[in-house]
């Protein structure tokens, strides 16, 4: 192969690489740069690690991190709910095709829309509490979005409801590709619903479950802004009860005119997300391998 032909493939991809570098690389470099500057307007003086010191020394930042970590508790629930519903649908209960569409609807709707509806539902004098009071369950009629102790859990309920839809579809798609003869054989051998799920279906689902867990982890750490923005009244409230790292960044950038601080927090969030991308790729490989070796 001569020199020109060795370069040819690179020349073909070069325009796209340059475009990607411009679209993603340039902003990334600027964010890293801003994180070391006291930015006022569109630039500012170099201040070394001061922004990082200020961010890491602020209680609110750590409170935000803690809230993100709390949201991780939703993942096991999402996995269980998604698996349960997916297996039910896989059993082809009457009308399963319709149910499959219905359960996916929350994922198709924009988060702000469902969050606004959910917020109305969970108001102190809203439908959820009205029903609870009607059922004489007054002790359960909490101030779902107005109490600092409850608000983050309300956000979590909404996240579980919506994000589980993705899990259901992913899991169901994987199940549809399983060898049905094995499951039929198990049925003939007298295996009940739980035994079939536990010993036949689940072991073959490991790859896709891992994939869903990693994607959900990334979501909980860096893609829940829309949920907390709406449920938290646009403030991460009540108080600071629903402030997450994304919201912290938004506030620093938009509301308090501190692009340097926002950039420092963004860089840290970016690095954590990058670390999570490796297990994501591994999970994707495993899912693909499962599929191929079936």
């Amino acid at each position, binding site marked *: 192969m001569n020199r020109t032909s060795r370069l040819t493939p690179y020349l073909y991809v070069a325009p796209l690489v340059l475009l990607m570098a411009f679209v993603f690389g340039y902003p990334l470099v600027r964010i890293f740069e801003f994180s070391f500057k*006291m930015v*006022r*307007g*569109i*630039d500012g003086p170099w201040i070394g690690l001061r922004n990082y010191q*200020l961010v890491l020394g*602020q209680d*609110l930042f750590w409170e935000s991190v803690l809230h993100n970590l709390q949201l991780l508790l939703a993942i096991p629930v999402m996995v269980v709910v998604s698996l349960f519903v997916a297996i039910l649908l896989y059993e082809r209960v009457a009308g399963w095709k319709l149910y499959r569409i219905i359960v996916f609807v929350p994922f198709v709707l924009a988060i702000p829309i469902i969050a606004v509806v959910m917020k109305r539902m*969970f*108001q*102190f*004098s*809203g439908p959820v509490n009205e029903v609870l009071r009607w059922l004489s369950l007054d002790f359960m009629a909490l*101030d*779902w*979005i*107005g*109490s*600092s*102790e409850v608000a983050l859990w309300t956000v979590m309920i909404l996240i579980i409801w919506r994000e589980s839809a993705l899990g259901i579809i992913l899991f169901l798609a994987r199940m549809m590709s399983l060898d049905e003869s094995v499951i039929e054989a198990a049925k003939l051998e007298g295996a009940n619903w739980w035994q079939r799920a536990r010993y036949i279906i689940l072991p073959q689902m490991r790859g896709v479950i891992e994939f869903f867990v990693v994607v959900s982890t990334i979501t909980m750490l860096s893609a829940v802004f829309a949920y907390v923005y709406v449920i938290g*009244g*646009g*403030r991460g*409230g*009540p*108080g*600071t009860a629903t402030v997450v790292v994304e919201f912290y960044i938004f*506030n620093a*950038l*938009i*509301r*308090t*005119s*501190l692009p340097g*601080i926002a950039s420092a927090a963004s860089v840290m969030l970016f690095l954590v997300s990058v670390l999570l991308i490796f297990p994501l790729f591994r999970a994707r490989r495993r899912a693909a391998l499962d599929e191929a070796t079936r």
Partner: protein
Amino acid sequence: MTDKKAWDLSRRELMKMGLALGAGSALGGVLPGSARAQQLTMDWWWWGEQELPGLQKVVDGAVAAYKEATIKPMLQDTAVVISQFQTAAAAGNAPDIQYLWNGIYHMESVWFGYLRGLKELVKPEILTASTPTALSNFGGDTYRVGWYPLPMMWIYNKKLFEQAKLDPNAPPKTWEELLTACEALKTAGIEPLGGGIQDGYWSEWYISHSLPQNLDTIGEAVELFIGDKDFRDPKYHEHWTKLEELKTKGYLNADMSSLELYPGIDLVPAGKLAMGQSIGTRLPADLKTANGEVGVMTMPVFGKGKLAGIPLLDVQGLGISSNAEDPKAAAAFLEFLNAPEQLKAFWDATGWIPSNTTFDTSVITDATVRSMWETWGLGKNISNVTNVMPGQFYERAAIPTGQQIVQGSMTGEQAGELAAATAKEWREFNPDLVENYQKWVVDLSAG
């Protein structure tokens, strides 16, 4: 399909066109200003339709009526009113005329050098009549022309007052009278006071009404942020202690924490809540909803500062950017907006009062609205103190403290501690802004 022939021009035709253009330009130099100005185009970025429906009509009407220049208006999104302007200004592309919220929301742009002082550009009588408020002053200059006012007040439902055997024409004036009224209302099975604090604005408004009660000047509030005064001093967190008192005595509506500001205000004209905070722009509609049974009042007095009990007036305004190509032309447009016929057009389009003390109030048919404007707009008033708050303080202390006190998880004293800690944190994050705030105190203490 494009007809290529139609685009083909001979050299002779091109020369003719060039000559015509050249002659046009030359004539422009000798034609009267009004004819020449047709060529001047100015950008106007504005906001406000979101809080004052009908403003779009005002803008469209003014742009169409103005013959001295072509004005290109652009309605901004709420989230980017400041950042969009500052980014454009830093890049040298700011609009000629910019909508400006009051206080720090435009003062930061003044400090960055993005806005022009107006004292040399706008006629003094127009500038004064537009009531830009003291918060637009810095270094002896004024940076905004007032556009529309936002009187801030408490409202009460007269029918509910009657039901509780309270005088509907004598709302409480002192804190003791307020507590007595709340008790009477509570006894009558009526939720006495509150609104909705879920989105945080109620917290802000509460501070607007209550913090000045222990201040002698707005500049004193700025001293709290720059560290010359301390929120831990009981005098400076007494307003939060009073809110705590209302909470512990059960005078706030039960669903206050889960309601947003405007649905919370709706409760008063709807007859579900006796008293609440509101804003003048809502008054005509609220009076209609309640068949005129809504009254206005200032926050009952508990403090001993010189600003206690004085009506509160915020004003939205317009300014001229440093990038304006022809600042005098921009100033002329701002003066045009304050011409009597434009003030009348403003009223006709919005049903609300423009910010100008020369506005003919005889067009206001509702006696309550006119009386409110005469007291809040034309009488002695003070600016909104929350507009001098640094954004960081606003988000971290002003909003959360109110929310936490209302839900019962914070005391007034703890709120003072959080506020002091946040002010200190702000100084660490913004050493450069502290310097400007120190200079601003001089203007605000004078006003």
